């Protein structure tokens, strides 16, 4: 029954916050050694979907298999029961997670942030854990920062520590929850570059992102969620090229509108007084907005 090609298999996934359905009967396969990007408007359920794949959020119905291993719940209908902690960790072992807010442990050095789980969970000796952590940190370009504390790093560096922490445990799959959304624009590139390198190495990745450029260039599969359902799914060319789904169209039109740089025609400068008062936002000629 298990699809051998799928790293993650989601069937009939349902989740609601109170009466409000966040995920409504989701079926999704995450292919091995490929990058799946999940895009969509805020509140469409994309982060919740990703968190379910790590069982950081539980769900009311449906099943998730991580490489054939049930995550969260086993059985169907009346026989459905919550997994034991042991079963959850057996499935989670294959999964790394990178958080939007990094979630590093501020009382530990960069090295200890990566090495502690290796010692406590993977039962490596102190020196083995440190060696492995150094290797993971070198991979994300932070070999020179191992003894610093997280607050002394830039946001981009902190997120790369987050990636190293996930990477060090040799996961088969890494889930990224808006990994660049909390970063200053000029720091986004360094994180995306590390992710590109991982993709090139054949890591199975699921990325919730607002970085359409990254999604279009790196993804093998793009999933568009809207109002708790998967509204569209396909290759980047299918989703970004000429989508037939009207919701995808308007979402992308809105995105490109916000991210297009146009020069302001000469001679239409805002009056100085208005600029000083701070309410003279220059209007862009031909922006299409009233």
């Amino acid at each position, binding site marked *: 029954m298990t699809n051998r090609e799928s790293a993650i298999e989601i069937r009939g996934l349902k989740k609601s916050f109170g009466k409000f359905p966040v995920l409504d009967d989701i079926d999704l396969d995450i292919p091995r050694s490929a990058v799946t990007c999940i895009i969509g408007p805020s509140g469409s359920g994309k982060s919740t979907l990703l968190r379910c794949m*790590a069982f950081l959020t539980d769900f009311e119905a449906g099943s998730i298999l991580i490489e054939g291993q049930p995550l969260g719940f086993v059985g169907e209908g009346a026989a459905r029961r919550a997994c034991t902690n042991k079963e959850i960790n057996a499935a989670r072992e294959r999964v790394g997670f990178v958080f939007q*807010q990094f979630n590093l442990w501020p009382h530990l050095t960069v090295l200890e942030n990566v090495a502690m789980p290796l010692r406590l969970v993977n039962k490596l000796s102190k020196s083995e854990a440190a060696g492995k952590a150094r290797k993971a940190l070198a991979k994300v370009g932070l070999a020179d920062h191992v003894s610093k504390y997280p607050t002394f790093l830039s946001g981009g560096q902190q997120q790369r520590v987050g990636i190293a922490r996930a990477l060090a445990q040799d996961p088969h799959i890494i889930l990224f929850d808006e990994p660049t959304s909390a970063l200053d624009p000029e720091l986004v590139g360094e994180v995306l570059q590390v992710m590109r390198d991982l993709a090139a190495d054949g890591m199975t990745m699921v990325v919730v992102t607002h970085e359409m450029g990254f999604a279009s260039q790196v993804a093998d599969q793009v999933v568009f969620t809207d109002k708790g359902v998967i509204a569209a799914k396909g290759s980047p060319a299918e989703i970004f090229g000429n989508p037939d789904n009207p919701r995808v169209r308007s979402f992308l039109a809105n995105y490109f509108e916000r991210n297009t740089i146009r020069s302001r025609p000469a001679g239409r400068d805002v009056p100085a007084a208005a600029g000083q008062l701070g309410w003279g936002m220059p209007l862009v000629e031909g922006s299409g907005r009233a």
Partner: protein
Amino acid sequence: MLEFSGALNEFPLFLQGAWASILYAVGCLTLGFLLAVMICMARISTVRIASLSARVYINVIRATPLLVVLLIVFNILPFVGVELSPEASALLSLTVCTAGYQAEILRGGFAGVSQGQIEAGRITGMSEWQIFRHIKLPQAFRLTLPALINETTIMIKGTSLISTVGILELTRVAQNVGNSNFRPLEALLIAAALYWLMTTAMTIAGDALIHRYAREKQS
């Protein structure tokens, strides 16, 4: 005029008394911290009966003077069949008192550890105990360290109350010496100076620890 020579002749007794005070303070603060962590866990747990019991405990302890707790443990427990030595009674009373305060101090510290950090621990496969021991507790300790140091200085001085149940610690030594040489003021001044030394040493050590932890943070 003050005349210290009589009291100073007994200085070794004062040092023995101070040493006893230190032992009681260290003992009650350490045991109290362990008890406080458990009470605090109960206080913030979602199990209602645990949370409620912890609340009642903290409330009762904070409303009862240490001296009253001490006299209850010393005088009333034997009536219900619990026979404790004066030393054990003293340590028990000091411990249950400071635990109530420390639990309430720590609660604020645990609240300061973000849910995201806990999720990061879970996803790496850490057990709830490991998350508690290696993520929550060290940070709660750092966040509440100034208040905890304050509590230690209060308890160092609080040990003087156990002199009332006959424990030979610094205050009791001072009273004994003062009574025997009819110079109580000088004896008490020497005791006060020694308490000052102990609390100041504690504050300096605490500040050093705060300073060390401050290097983990960019201001």
